[in-house]
């Protein structure tokens, strides 16, 4: 009994099917033969065949483009190869036999790019998704200029999904400001794209793997009750699950240290970054002695949190303040972080969108464009 219990737990959490990332792919190549592929579009959608794919430009109004799907394998993910000169938000649309209704995906943000870029859209995140849609396509807003080179419709079979599930349990979150308040823990994902995108949204788009744990306990309890086994075996099952979960979470904690070591502790100042704060901690350390003889200094940044509190901690008793209400003519030191819109003009003044922000002065140190130490001559 104990051996079979341990084997059951071990299978779910340790055994890894050999097929790693195997997938079934159907490719729609839009670099040629677009007209023969059966695409249907609004009359106001201008479609131009180019060497890089089909260029889509809605005219006068938003437009849709779709085609019928005749694929036997299930579709879980769309890999879209595209290019667009400016960032644009489009939507994917599909219909399926059961509902017969057009469904719009949550918006897809296409980043501006000169070369072909790939975006992976996980259809399985959405409740209305059907693994065998009857048609697929896109909605494009007026003003869009998108070239689609290729579409890969990707699916995985149940065995591959089981393997992805087991591997996904060992996909770790990064340490975040919320980690001291809660930890997401292991999540269930059923294909590699879902695993990769697991913590891209808050909360994660995948269910907690605690369901597996409770399910295992439920099955174990029923088995023990039906077979009239000792309940001591149930305690043993709990202990095994507990230790496995501890190993999983302990490994995540070790990964925090590993990531920190790779990006911060093993790197030189100037190249190292610390988690999502990039080099701000080093910047604040450099700034502290510069402002130490000043009661206050001007601090301008892209977002107030967490940078205001963090730099205040480093520079205390010198306190950061804003440039408004005449402060720019009182406090000479400016610390600017990630504000590429703020530059120095030929008179030595800081300007943003042609608005003068400071008296003339000099740049003491530049960390990168938009991040620097400036001293005004007052």
């Amino acid at each position: 009994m104990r051996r079979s219990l341990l084997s059951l737990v071990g299978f779910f959490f340790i055994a890894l099917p050999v097929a790693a990332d195997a997938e079934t792919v159907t490719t729609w190549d839009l670099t040629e033969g677009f007209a023969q592929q059966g695409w249907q579009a609004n009359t106001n959608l201008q479609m131009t065949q180019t060497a890089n794919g089909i260029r889509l430009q809605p005219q006068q109004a938003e437009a849709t483009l779709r085609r019928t799907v005749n694929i036997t394998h299930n579709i879980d993910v769309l890999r879209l190869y595209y290019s667009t000169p400016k960032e644009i938000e489009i939507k994917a649309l599909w219909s399926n036999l059961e509902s017969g209704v057009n469904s719009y995906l949550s918006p897809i943000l296409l980043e501006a790019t000169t070369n072909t870029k790939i975006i992976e859209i996980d259809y399985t995140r959405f409740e209305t998704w059907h693994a065998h849609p009857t048609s697929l396509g896109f909605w494009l807003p007026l003003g869009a200029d998108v070239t689609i080179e290729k579409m890969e419709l990707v699916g995985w079979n149940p065995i591959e999904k089981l393997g992805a599930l087991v591997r996904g349990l060992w996909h770790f979150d990064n340490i975040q400001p919320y980690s001291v308040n809660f930890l997401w823990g292991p999540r269930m994902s059923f294909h590699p794209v879902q695993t990769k995108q697991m913590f891209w949204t808050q909360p994660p788009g995948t269910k907690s793997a605690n369901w597996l744990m409770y399910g295992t306990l439920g099955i174990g309890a029923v088995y023990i009750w039906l077979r009239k086994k000792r309940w001591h075996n149930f305690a043993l099952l709990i202990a095994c699950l507990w230790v496995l979960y501890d190993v999983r979470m302990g490994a995540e904690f070790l990964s925090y240290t590993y990531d920190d070591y790779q990006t911060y502790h093993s790197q030189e100042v100037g190249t190292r970054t610390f988690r999502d704060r990039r080099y701000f901690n080093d910047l604040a350390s450099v700034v502290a002695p510069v402002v130490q003889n000043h009661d206050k200094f001007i601090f301008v940044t892209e977002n107030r949190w967490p940078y205001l509190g963090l730099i205040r901690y480093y520079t205390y008793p010198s306190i950061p303040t804003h440039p408004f209400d005449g402060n720019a003519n009182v406090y000479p030191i400016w610390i600017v972080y990630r504000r590429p819109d703020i530059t120095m003009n030929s008179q030595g003044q800081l300007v943003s969108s042609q608005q003068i922000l400071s008296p003339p002065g000099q740049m003491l140190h530049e960390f990168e464009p938009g991040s620097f130490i400036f001293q005004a001559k007052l």
Partner: protein
Amino acid sequence: MNIVAFVIGMGIPTLIGWLLVRLTEQDTPVLSVYERWVVAFALGITATMFAFFVGEESGFMQFTAANFLLLATVLLIGLGTWYMRVRIHWPKNTVQLVKNTPLSRKKKIILFALGSWTILKICNAAFLLIASPPYLDDVFNNWNMRGKMYYVTQELELTMEIGNDITSDAGVSSYPPTVPLVKTWLATLAGNWNEGLINAPHILWYISVLLLVFFFLRRQTTFFWACIGTYGLSSLPIFTLHAAHAYADVFVAMHVFFVVSCLYSSIATDNDAASVTWLRLAGLGAALLVFTKNEALLLHLPACILLFIVCIYALQKQGVLSRREIQSTVVHNSIALACVLVPWLLFKWAHDLPFGNAKSVSGMDIAWQAGAAKAIWINTFFEGNWILLFPILIGLIVTRWRSAFFSICCIFTAYVLMLLLAQIPLYLFTGLSTEAIKQTGLARGFVQLAPEMVTLVILLYTYKPELDKPTE
């Protein structure tokens, strides 16, 4: 220099704590030698920082190295002299442990594996804590920030400049200054503000609470189950993560566990005189608990006082305590509590500081808060915070309800349920629901209860009703 400062900075309060604890035990020592040093460290830090607080607020000192060391020396000399005068009449330690059965080879392997894994995680947490730059909000906005303020200004500065010409006169300054003062003390001794140095005590507090749980369980059950309980606590993911960050919830958990375990021990012991000692130690712990975080005053202290009254009543009914002993214990604990509570309350009222966690709890509307129940459900059962702790705890309380409510285990059961039932309605029916919905305060409140919950699991699982105590 930082290492020297750390050794002195931790050593002196530990010595002060040792004297306090030993003077509280008097002629009936109940703690083992090593346990007493752990308790001394845990309580001595708080007691010493309280003394610094009183010294500064009384106008006798600023936060300079000379003043710190002078006051600490006065305390050591005073307590030490008192101890030397009375100790000649006191016997040596007589601590009773549950008889151990030899460990099987399988159990030795299990303990070795789990112990090694635990040590690795603690080392990992220590590295994250000491080697990392400040990252979390409450580190650079509260605990470390206030410590630095006191270090720079050399006084208990309450007005915090937020930046952008905004100041806060209350807010986080309403918290007891214990944890920030520890950082001020270490930085002052070292002569510089070093992140690793001032964060290091947090990992010692984490180790201390693990050791307190181990020593307590070792008195109640065998070495194997004491280790399992300690491992269980150390394996809770959110509890371990707090070891790696300079927050104060593990610090509070350490104090709370000491008080509750003393109350339990007062009932569990066979020695009547030892019961009195345990109650006095609980009083000392409860007094210092006030000076940890605001929720210690609002939530933990009332529960501790209630349990203290229950213990007194039970011991009196069993004929363990005489009327005189009850009076003496109540007076002793009341004086100890008053010595900390009165100055702290006067300070809060004098500076118009709120009693809630950086916000006032009075004047809150009572109404059902949508989303709070779901948030509590998910945070407790469907995230990576607690593994199976809550299902196991609930399962044991239900299936072993007689032991949970009608045996000595009821001390821990009562405390856990009181605190859960005190916190959860606040999230469900008041504006504090944002702490649950945004998950900013919910799990951290449970972190303070984690040692009690894990201990209760072990006690209930090993409890033998026919023997009326836990065994193997």
